[in-house]
């Protein structure tokens, strides 16, 4: 097999050459470059020489630990309580700033906390923004991948019929994919505005019961709003892939199942779904990877805010690398993202392997 690949395959290599060389130049080389840069202190703009700093960038990003805080007590040892009866805790900054007794927490910030008895367990991290980005990115993937996948399949099934004018629907569903994501994001920003279309519709439908809310301005709804918009925007693309998969299933199989008296569900379960196996794997992996690359919507709609509720790994990589001129920090995030996506893709491949 290997010998066949290298020898007597000149035509094959000639055809592959342009694609392979471009991929190498723009994907493979930059990746190794990013990996190398993430071990240095490379700046975007600097007269200072670049130095090798080992894993410092990764340590700054990933350092995280648990700080246990006991409630404040008065002289008699009684726990101080606020008006609601909850114990009062000293501020985290008293431990993390200029406190020689807690050197290991220096420069860290609170990410979140929970209570075990009266003790507050505070998760502190050097780079809370990074951890928020990681959380948001994963949340986005977990929500978008399955919903977009299922919706796209549903749409593909709907438009895979011989009806007059079905092409109009195909075009309509596919249209958001053709429009630039930046334009789509800008438009949805208006839809989501406090006095925007969405609030007006919801208000009209509920006869004025629904009070308008600031979808992108509230940490509770901002990420969800972007997820909904992203699902809508790209669903048409995956619909087309599903559709191409549907059309590779031989019509004879459907004829057979009709003759055998299969119900619609049985036809789907035993004819359509097995026939879509490879398509399903492709769509799942593509959606997952695209979801991890979430950037444009964030950049246009929220800039990562409010309160880091929509910041993502790619957004942070760009923000640090260019806006904050920290190429090495941005590269470190890219490498972490790469490893994350690689791991998840490998797991998906393993789970969907031919048994």
């Amino acid at each position, binding site marked *: 097999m290997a010998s066949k690949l290298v020898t007597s395959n000149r035509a094959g290599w000639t055809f592959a050459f342009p694609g392979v060389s471009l991929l190498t130049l723009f994907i493979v080389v930059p990746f190794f470059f990013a990996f190398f840069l993430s071990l240095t*202190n490379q*700046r*975007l*703009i*600097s*007269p*200072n020489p670049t130095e090798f700093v080992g894993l410092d960038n990764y340590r*700054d990003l990933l350092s995280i630990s648990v700080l246990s805080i006991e409630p404040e007590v008065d002289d008699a040892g009684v726990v101080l309580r606020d008006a609601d009866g909850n114990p009062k805790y000293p*501020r*985290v*900054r008293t431990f993390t*700033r200029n406190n020689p007794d807690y050197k290991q927490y220096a*420069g860290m*910030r*609170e990410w979140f906390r929970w209570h075990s008895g009266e003790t507050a367990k505070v998760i502190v991290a050097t780079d*809370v923004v990074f951890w928020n980005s990681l959380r948001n990115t994963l949340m986005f993937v977990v929500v978008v991948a399955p919903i977009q996948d299922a919706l796209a399949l549903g749409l593909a099934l709907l438009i895979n019929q011989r009806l007059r004018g079905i092409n109009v629907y195909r075009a309509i569903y596919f249209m958001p994919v053709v429009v630039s994501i930046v334009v789509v994001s800008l438009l949805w920003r*208006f839809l989501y*505005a*406090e006095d925007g279309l969405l609030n007006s519709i919801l208000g009209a439908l509920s006869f004025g019961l629904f009070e308008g809310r*600031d979808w*992108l*301005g509230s*940490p509770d709804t901002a990420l969800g709003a972007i997820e909904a918009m992203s699902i809508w925007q790209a669903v048409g693309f995956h619909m087309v892939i599903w559709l191409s998969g549907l059309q590779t299933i031989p019509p004879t199989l459907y004829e057979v199942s009709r003759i055998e008296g299969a119900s619609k569900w049985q036809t789907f379960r035993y004819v359509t779904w097995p026939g879509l196996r490879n398509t399903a794997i492709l769509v799942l992996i593509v959606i997952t990877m695209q979801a991890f690359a979430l950037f444009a919507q964030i950049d246009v709609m929220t*800039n990562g*805010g*409010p*309160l*880091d509720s929509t910041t993502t790994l790619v957004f942070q990589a760009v*923000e640090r690398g*260019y*806006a*904050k*001129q*920290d190429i090495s920090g941005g590269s470190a995030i890219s490498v972490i993202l790469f490893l994350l996506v690689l791991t998840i893709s490998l797991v998906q491949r393993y789970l969907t392997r031919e048994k």
Partner: protein
Amino acid sequence: MNLKTTLAGALVVSTSWASMAVAQTDLTMWYHGGGNEVESALINQIVSDFNATNADYNVNLESFPQGSYNDSIVAAALAGDLPDIIDVDGPVMPNWAWANYMQPLSIDETIIADFLPGTIGRWNGELYSVGLWDAAVSLYARQSTLDALGLRTPTLDNPWTGDEFMAALDAAKASDICEYAFDPGMAWTGEWYPYAFSPFLQSFGGDIVDRSTYKTAEGALNGDEALEFGAWWQSLFAGGYAPGTSQDPSDRDTGFIDGKYCFSWNGNWAAVATLDAGVDDLLFLPAPDFGKGSVIGAGSWQFGISATSEHAEGANAFIEFALQDKYLAAFSDGIGLIPSTMAAAAMTKNYAENGPLNVYFALSSEQALVRPVSPGYVVAAKVFEKALADIANGADVADTLDAAVDEINTDFERNGGYGH
């Protein structure tokens, strides 16, 4: 084959023809105002006037959209392909000078003796950039609003105190004249935040970095004064005085004109449009004084010379040429900017003695404080922007400012103190 020879021949002929016609040395120049017709016409006028009068040099201008201009410069610098003359935003200049993108100017310093302080860019004791204009910010208000709310008109010598300002906002909020009392302009993300809002912090007594050493932000951005500023800043949004970070950009542009906002914190560049829109009792009030005086930002786009330019002499000649009062006045009349000199201001229709925007010239010369003159400002500005957005959205003030200080200090360390 035939086609190739023809093309090659045509190329040889055309280039030799061009080099025969032009005996001047070519200079390249990049400018940030691409896409703005009026601005392009103005800068083109200067370039063609220069080329017509100067026998030795010929400037070729290339304009970029403002949004991608800085990226283009950085990319060109990394590729070793900078033009001779560049323009640079005032607060960014130290960064580029420190990174050896720029060389000091060698223009006759008497030319700029009367220039507004915000228009002159110095780093490490050397002159690197000069601007034809400055920009300033003031509190937009209507006389009728002040009358209806029974407020005194603050003046340059006697601005509102912080308490008076908040009393004014309270009065505006209690009335139903407008939807929001105050519009700080949260929709304008980016450099607007440090440019427009750090003066409030400075008026409280804090700053983005400690300007005595330029080595730390500790104490300046998270000291007691800064915490006080942060609490006040948060109260603007928590108290419902001002629209938050999700403000619609179009409301930012027309909200004051439409009467949606009683007071608006806005720059002189919006003044002409506001007057033209029919707000005939428009006032430009000075910034409130929160204890350490009224402060506004300064420093706009300025001209400089790239470090790699081989024709610095010609580039200096061009900049000297551009600094004539008539061009300063032309830019001011064209796009509403504050001309750099009093003499040029007198030639303009807006900033002359009795012009409608004359007050801005006084604001700029008396209250303006440039943003921290440091190569690290570029990063600190981003950190400051995020901190202010977070505080406006309800983040804990002390924690947010601490985190901002840590990030700025880490950046200082990683850059070996930025040469301070």
